């Protein structure tokens, strides 16, 4: 540290001593700027940078492995299948991204600074949500681009590329991945703790469907109820989007309210009202 000096502090603080703050020339912080700041925060630490890098690497690796295996065995594979392989893995990683967007602010206590610079907390949370959606869409674009490259290479090696993708698969992919990210986001808002949110997410995804299936197997009345509370199965229907009936949409909406909307609302209420220390 060099020897400290008492240099000039500011330009606008002058001899006059106003009792009232003149804020007429001060514009509120635009929402786009908040999104930009949150986007930067999502990659400016080692943990957040590597999470994004790993998502990218996993997408590329998964599709490359699918390409190698199918090329060597001369199995049939479509454009859409490549992205589906990537989607299977990113549906585990994107929720972690959703969780980290919320929890780092609390575990590292930087929420104190964030909510001091923008005291309308709901806008900060919305900006974080927007960043989650932007990064999820970026993942989908990457998975689709790599899928296209893999399909082209497959055609080059095997002579018969199958460019079938299907809008069903595409929109199912977009909605499904965003729901996965949002579920992580909601659990993080509810728990405000990275480890707890990740554990609960995996219970949600891997343990709960099994329990529901078990209950449905032994109890008749539960069997009828199960589709309405099983969020995982309801999301599975998304990949045959055009075949989805009103009933299946109903399953998605009802189970989504139970497992995503309720924790999100409780979590947001808490974040908006809580004392920040």
């Amino acid at each position, binding site marked *: *540290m*060099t*020897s*400290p*000096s*008492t*240099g*000039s*502090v*500011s*330009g*606008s*603080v*002058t*001899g*006059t*001593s*106003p*009792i*009232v*703050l*003149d*804020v007429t020339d*001060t*514009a*509120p*912080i635009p929402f786009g*700027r*908040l999104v*930009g*700041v949150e986007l*930067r*925060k999502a990659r*400016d*630490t*080692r*943990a957040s940078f590597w999470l994004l890098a790993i998502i990218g690497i996993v997408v590329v690796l998964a599709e490359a492995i699918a390409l190698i295996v199918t090329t060597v065995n001369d199995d049939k594979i479509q454009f859409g299948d490549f992205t589906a392989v990537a989607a299977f893995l990113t549906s585990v990683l994107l929720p972690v991204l959703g969780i980290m967007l919320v929890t*780092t602010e609390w575990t*590292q*206590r*930087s929420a*104190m*600074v964030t*909510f*001091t*610079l*923008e*005291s*309308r907390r709901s806008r900060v949370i919305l900006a974080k949500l927007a960043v989650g959606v932007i990064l999820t869409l970026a993942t989908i674009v990457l998975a689709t681009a790599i899928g296209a490259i893999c399909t082209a290479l497959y055609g080059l090696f095997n002579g018969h590329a199958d460019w079938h993708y299907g809008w069903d698969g595409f929109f199912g992919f977009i909605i499904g991945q965003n729901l996965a990210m949002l579920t992580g986001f909601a659990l993080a808002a509810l728990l405000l703790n990275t480890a707890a949110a990740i554990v609960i997410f995996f219970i949600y995804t891997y343990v709960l469907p099994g329990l529901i299936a078990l209950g449905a197997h032994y109890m008749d009345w539960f069997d009828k109820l199960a589709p309405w509370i099983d969020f995982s199965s309801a999301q599975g229907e998304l990949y045959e989007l055009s075949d989805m009936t009103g009933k299946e949409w109903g399953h998605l909406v009802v189970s989504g309210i139970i497992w995503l909307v309720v924790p999100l609302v409780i979590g947001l209420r808490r974040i908006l*009202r809580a*004392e*920040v*220390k």
Partner: protein
Amino acid sequence: MIKVEGLTRKYGSFVAVDDVSFTCQPGRVTGFLGPNGAGKSTTMRVMVGLTPPTKGEVTIGGLRYHDIPNPGRHVGVLLDASAQHGGRTGREVLTLGAMTMGLPESRVDEMLDLVSLTKAEAKRRIRNYSLGMKQRLGIAHALLGDPQVLILDEPANGLDPAGIRWMRGLLKNYADRGGTVLLSSHLLHEVEQIADEMILIGNGRIVARGDRETLLAGAGPAQTLVTSLDNAALAAALQAAGLPVEQAGRGLRVQAAAADVGRAALSAQVVLTDLRDGGAGLEDLFLQLTADTQREAPSSLQAPTPEGTVA
């Protein structure tokens, strides 16, 4: 500029801040003093909307914090220098602040210069910073938006003596230019030299306020400590003049102003070797006013016995 009115904050049955009212004037440094847990930080968190008050209100320049657009441009805040992501560099923290407030990147360099953090230090991650460096960074962050009001919670904590002197100069200069400064401390000497006004808080309540002189005047009747070549003769002269006197160490303690003691000595023709104000200092006053809230009563300290065994 800062106006706190009837502020109360309860946590269950515990009252952290109890009906506190005060104002901070522009162009002045207001010191907010009290022992740990007296309610300083809670009051400051309420000011910037991080803690909802149970009762009462705080306005800054006539506005509630929540209603100030882009508040970083008007109110510089440092509540906890450690409340930053340890994985970010110092420069990154300032860059995020500047981005949020809509300031150019050049402002970051200006602030780093101002708080004397070098380029190399600014590139290090905050988890590797000393507390003093975090405080400098926090002060830089608070000043980023060129605010008219500064709210600093224990900013001198962790600064070395040179750093404390530097900060005093910085804040004095800032207030002289018309800025409003509220800074808290649990250490009197950090504040008494720069604060134009002091607010003493203990147990969530304001126990005293005013500038140095007002506070000392309220500390009780004048007392003088005097030593002379002939204390017995002096004591007799003082008693003859009707001034209560008692033995105090090698000298005398007199319940009177120094001038009266000097006059008595002069007429008794006793040579004085030491004459000084024996009234309770600001430190004593501070301890006395906040005595109920101190965690350790000074009297409970016992000197170890020569053998090192506990008596």
